[in-house]
């Protein structure tokens, strides 16, 4: 049987990215899709201001609901995370996240010495829970303007996916947006450049240390329906899986660990 030119994972990632960002005309016209599909969230981190995006970003949507004057909790997003997390866990990160795919492709760039496990790697992975709690939940909920509306703090000050998928294509094709760029755009562009550079050296740095969506799905990894089963009777303890795992976890010793993206 002929071998596929791409791995199964890369094929799924590519097909999913194209399917969920299929509004191609948006890239040429500097506009975004505004049809009914945007009522639904996609499972991965996919900016809804990406010109091609057909669905909504769950992290952006959560901040939009929490930051609105009308609601102080989001049942819609809570239910979405419960459902997707329980069925798939961090499989979403591994297979259904366009920004994860971008980082993986950048990591494939050769001629650079890659950074594997380092001393602060594990403690730094707790950062994403702080970003989730602070920038996605607390700040949009409690720092509000006179109308009672909170800003989407994570999208505004941190998210490099929004800059890459939404900011760069829209600003480069829309003269009206070009005329109003300022400090915030430069700040977000700087974060994107740092993320891109780090992604060449470290496997999925944004997923490991920053992503609040990964932090949510990580909570479900132990109980999700899709998970790894290790047959310890067949395991030879060669630790080859541990050496190969790009997330630097032990698939046998830490099976279905919160950091496992499947």
């Amino acid at each position: 049987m002929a071998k596929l030119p791409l791995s199964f994972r890369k094929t799924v990632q590519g097909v999913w990215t194209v399917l969920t960002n299929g509004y191609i005309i948006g890239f040429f016209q500097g506009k975004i899709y505004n049809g009914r599909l945007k009522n639904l969230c996609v499972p991965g981190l996919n900016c809804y201001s990406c010109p091609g995006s057909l669905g909504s970003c769950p992290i952006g949507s959560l901040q939009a609901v929490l930051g609105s004057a009308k609601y102080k909790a989001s049942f819609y997003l809570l239910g979405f995370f419960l459902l997707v997390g329980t069925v798939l866990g961090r499989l979403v990160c591994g297979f259904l996240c366009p920004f994860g795919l971008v980082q993986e492709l950048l990591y494939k760039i050769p001629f650079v010495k890659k950074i594997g496990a380092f001393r602060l790697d594990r403690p730094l992975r707790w950062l994403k829970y702080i970003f989730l709690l602070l920038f996605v939940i607390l700040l949009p909920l409690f720092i509000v303007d006179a109308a009672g509306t909170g800003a989407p703090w994570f999208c505004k000050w941190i998210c490099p996916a929004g800059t890459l998928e939404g900011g760069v294509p829209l600003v480069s094709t829309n003269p009206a947006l070009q005329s109003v760029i300022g400090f915030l755009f430069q700040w977000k562009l700087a974060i994107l450049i740092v993320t891109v550079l780090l992604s060449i050296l470290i496997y999925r740095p944004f997923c490991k240390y920053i992503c609040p969506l990964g932090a949510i799905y990580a909570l479900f990894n132990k109980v999700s329906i899709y998970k790894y089963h290790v047959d310890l009777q067949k395991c030879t303890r060669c630790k080859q899986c541990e050496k190969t795992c790009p997330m630097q976890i032990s698939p046998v010793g830490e099976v279905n660990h919160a950091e496992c993206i499947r």
Partner: protein
Amino acid sequence: MKNGAGLSKKSLKRQTDKVLFLQILLILAGVLAIAAGIWRDEVRTVFMKATYICLECIGIG
């Protein structure tokens, strides 16, 4: 009879049943929460945010 993790068949079955119960519970809670969100019209807020260019997301302001 014990498996590789040192668990007897009986305790392994009990553990699997517990996880299955939790999975069903979480999925039911998820479906109910989504229904509650739709009933509260949260979807409109999501839709409104998603169908206009999010200036914060793209770094304009």
